[in-house]
């Protein structure tokens, strides 16, 4: 691992998960010998960590262990100018079957695999299938039951690699009326909207939710809607969110065929 990062790819820093006296934690190392007991089997969003540490390492190339979803998260970051692509070195990690199963991941293989064996994607998320088949009422009841468990701990936002805001608007009163717990439906609906053009389906929100709300399922359902309506899939450094751009080919548009 250290060899690939420092020697082969000329990294100055390496962001990874490693085990230290029994605890697994993310670490940023600058010397090969610090690599210690690397853990590739822990599905944690290193990109979320990268956001915090990036400013602390003003110089040099940063290598980070990237699964496909990390890669896409990184793309969402770079296109917003949070990190400089030039400074990033991606060390591709293909997810294990177990991890893929856990994330119901439909896109598990990074563009370049350095570690791990490429495995088949899981095409569908059963729960979303089931929910889509339900009557709206049943679906509502399902989510109400789920969201009732929410105790507004903000683990989902804090661990989300594509939640960029320092303090979340959902912590304020403006859109989320009840101060109390649970926060009411608008909390999760508004969060869904905020993520709809950038969620890369890493599943971190779901994994970190103490109430075990199937948030990844909600993400996946809306990702499908976004793709259906605007043909847009987050995670591509070259594309911008369709929600802020103009309709193509309409009057007043530059070089439209109307005018």
């Amino acid at each position, binding site marked *: 691992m250290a060899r690939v990062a420092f020697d082969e790819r000329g990294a100055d820093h390496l962001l990874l998960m490693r085990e230290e006296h029994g605890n697994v934690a993310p670490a940023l190392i600058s010397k090969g010998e610090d690599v210690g007991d690397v853990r590739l089997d822990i599905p944690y969003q290193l990109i979320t960590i990268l956001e915090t540490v990036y400013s602390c390492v003003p110089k040099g190339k940063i290598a980070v262990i990237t699964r496909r979803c990390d890669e896409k998260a990184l793309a969402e970051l770079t296109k917003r100018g949070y990190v400089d692509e030039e400074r990033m070195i991606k060390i591709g990690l293909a997810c294990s079957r177990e991890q893929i199963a856990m994330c119901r991941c439909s896109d598990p293989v990074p563009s370049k695999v350095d570690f791990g064996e490429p495995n088949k994607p899981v095409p569908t998320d059963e729960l979303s299938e089931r*929910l889509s088949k*339900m009557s*709206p*009422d*049943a*679906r*509502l*009841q*399902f*989510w*109400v039951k789920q*969201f*009732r468990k929410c105790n507004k701990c903000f683990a989902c936002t804090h661990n989300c690699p594509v939640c960029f805001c320092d303090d979340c*608007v959902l912590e304020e009163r*403006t*859109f*989320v*009326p009840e101060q109390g717990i*649970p926060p*009411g*439906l*608008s909390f*999760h*609906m*508004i969060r*869904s*909207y905020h993520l*709809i053009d950038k969620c890369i389906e890493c599943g971190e929100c779901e994994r970190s939710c103490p109430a075990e709300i199937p948030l990844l399922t*909600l993400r996946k*359902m*809306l990702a499908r*809607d*976004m793709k259906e*309506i*605007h043909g847009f899939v987050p995670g591509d450094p070259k594309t911008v969110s*369709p*929600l*802020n*751009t*103009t*309709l193509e080919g*309409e*009057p*007043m*548009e530059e070089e439209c065929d109307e005018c």
Partner: protein
Amino acid sequence: MMTDFRPTILAFCCNWCSYAGADLAGVSRLQMPPNVHVIRVMCSASVKPEYVLKALSQGVDGVLVLGCHIGDCHYMTGNHRTAKRIPLVQRILKETGIDEKRLKLDWVSAAEGEKFQKVITDFVQDVQKLGPNPLREVRF
């Protein structure tokens, strides 16, 4: 039963076209159901989906977003964004089990008093058919 249900409806109208259209409807004395409460904004593109989701999750029975026709936007392409955002908000409602018909996007020009009347009347009827917003009951 359905008929005596009087929905509470919120409408966002852009200052330049749809609010003017609403005024024209008034000047022309076009009668319509009294359930719709208009909030004037400068452009339909300034309507945050957050408002819509907030209102509906607090029990408002329906939300209308009205803007200029595409091409007529006072801000050139503001309403292009509206046209792209609202359908996704409708999906968020759908996926959580709230009928997406409770949110409607339409275009009303400053000369379309009659269209404003029709949009309001039809939407009120649609929402009446849907019945009260289930989230009125779901208090938590």
